[in-house]
């Protein structure tokens, strides 16, 4: 059996009266991109700090790459890389000097540093600008350089805390492309904190959802969609009158129906619900159908549904 890259058991961290991480039990297999999803202040950054051994847990325990976070933090940091909330680049130094410093920190030989800096900067398209001071660069370029820095010493595990936050859509997409390519090539395990759900959907093999320090669920985006999100359908055409909508809402195989921008959006009651009888009912009610498409709930739908469910449970308690 392959050992988990990260294993936590009831990991808890309090800051005074506030419980930032609440009995987190989690297992991240090696070689995957794991998305840790949650709103701002959900406990994602505190979790990274705990896993890097930078903060002591209040209770519970965690093992990262087989090392205990309480007593072997330095061994974890030796074998991992981290891009935290900020890029952490020395803005007065050039891109090359930044990477060279961290190459020395991780004890790469001069030849190794030179080759690796060239390889990574070429991959992210910054090699020609390596002599420039980083302070004058755009945030997107800095984030690319920061990712190159994180991968410089070929770590077994990397922690990324909101790497595309604050980037414009083009820069964010470029960074995601680079990240995806580099991670695939290097075969590294990634623990990705994000609240960007399309990003998690595209990059992550597994995701965990956290709210107020509590882990609500873990699984692959597909499995979560199957388990939590209801199947959906889009119908294009005309004649989606209030009467037709009322007829649809009365059906057992439909959970909700609404018209948005001329499209009929249906949320089906469960995975077994069939589209054919619904189309027939629509046609019989006088609607003209041009196209119908069945699909899954997005990760965003799953996330919002989980948040809503947890909030309702909290209110009930």
């Amino acid at each position: 059996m392959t050992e988990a890259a990260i294993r936590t058991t009831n990991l808890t961290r309090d800051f005074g009266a506030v419980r930032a991480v609440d009995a987190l039990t989690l297992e991240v297999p090696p070689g995957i991109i794991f998305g840790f999803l949650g709103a701002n202040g959900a406990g994602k950054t505190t979790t990274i700090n705990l896993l890097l051994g930078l903060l002591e847990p209040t209770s519970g325990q965690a093992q990262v790459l087989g090392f205990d976070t309480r007593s072997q933090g330095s061994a974890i940091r030796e074998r991992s890389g981290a891009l935290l909330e900020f890029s952490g680049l020395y803005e007065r130094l050039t891109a090359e000097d930044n990477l060279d410093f961290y190459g020395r920190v991780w004890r790469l030989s001069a030849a190794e540093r030179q080759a690796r800096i060239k390889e990574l900067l070429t991959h992210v398209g910054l090699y020609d600008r390596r002599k420039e001071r980083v302070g004058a660069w755009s945030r997107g370029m800095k984030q690319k350089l920061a990712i190159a820095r994180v991968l410089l010493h070929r770590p077994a595990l990397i922690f990324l805390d909101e790497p595309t936050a604050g980037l414009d859509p083009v820069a964010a997409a470029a960074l995601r492309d680079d990240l995806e390519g580099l991670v695939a090539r290097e075969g590294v395990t990634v623990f990705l904190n994000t609240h960007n759900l399309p990003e998690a959907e595209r990059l992550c093999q597994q995701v965990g959802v956290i709210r107020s320090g509590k882990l609500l669920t873990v699984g692959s985006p597909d499995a979560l969609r199957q388990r939590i999100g209801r199947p959906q359908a889009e119908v294009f055409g005309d004649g989606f009158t209030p009467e037709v909508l009322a007829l649809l809402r009365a059906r057992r195989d439909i959970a909700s129906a609404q018209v948005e921008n001329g499209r009929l959006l249906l949320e089906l009651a469960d995975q077994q619900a069939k589209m054919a009888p619904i189309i027939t009912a629509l046609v019989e009610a006088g609607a003209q159908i041009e196209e119908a498409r069945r699909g899954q709930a997005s990760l965003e739908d799953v996330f919002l549904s989980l948040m809503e469910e947890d909030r309702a449970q909290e209110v009930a308690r």
Partner: protein
Amino acid sequence: MIADIWTVMGKEWREYVAGGGGGSGRGVIAALLLIGIASILWPLQMGRAIFTSPTPIIVDGLLLPYIILQTVIADSFAGERERHTLETLLASRLSDRAILFGKVGAAVAYGSAAGLIGALAQAVVANLSPKNADVGLAFYPVGSIVVIIALALLMSLLTASVGCLVSLRAATTRQAQLSLTFGFLALVFAPFIIFQVLPRQTQNAILDALNAADPTRVLLIFAGALLAVAVALLVIAMARFQRARLILS
């Protein structure tokens, strides 16, 4: 660990050079003014007499290292915190001591080099002074240059230790610089103020003791006191260097 300390020292030096010697540049301006007065005006006026005067010992051994260092050392942790580079450094494999000693080591080397360069500049200018037109080249007595180097090293170590301690706790570089400046002024003026409030008899006794004392012995005691305070402050800084606290700050 030695290699890690060298790595941090190298980074600090690159930042000193790239940043013009410190966070705001004010310290560099003050140091340039001091160098201008101490290394050009005084030696031009004094000529060879500067080699036997106590001025280089005070200026190059004590003042120059302090003024040069107070800006860069205030920036050491507070500046990294302000520029959001500290948490990445703490998340690296570097040990606490490598980070702390690397920063202190870079500062000590920088301050000592400034003191030595100041003394050498004075020697060059003193030899070029019109007052020495008819005499040959001269230099400091060996004892003086040893004292200048030793004091510059100790003063740099003291400034670096107290600076790191202040910078670890300060929210901003500016706050750290202010604390260091006020601390220095208190340190310089406190003995004079205390002396003034002492009874006349005690004042006379102290003056008599100082006049009668062997200058070498006074210097050694002073150097020993500088070293003891610097080491004590460094030990406190080591105890206060806690990753968890720095991450949360």
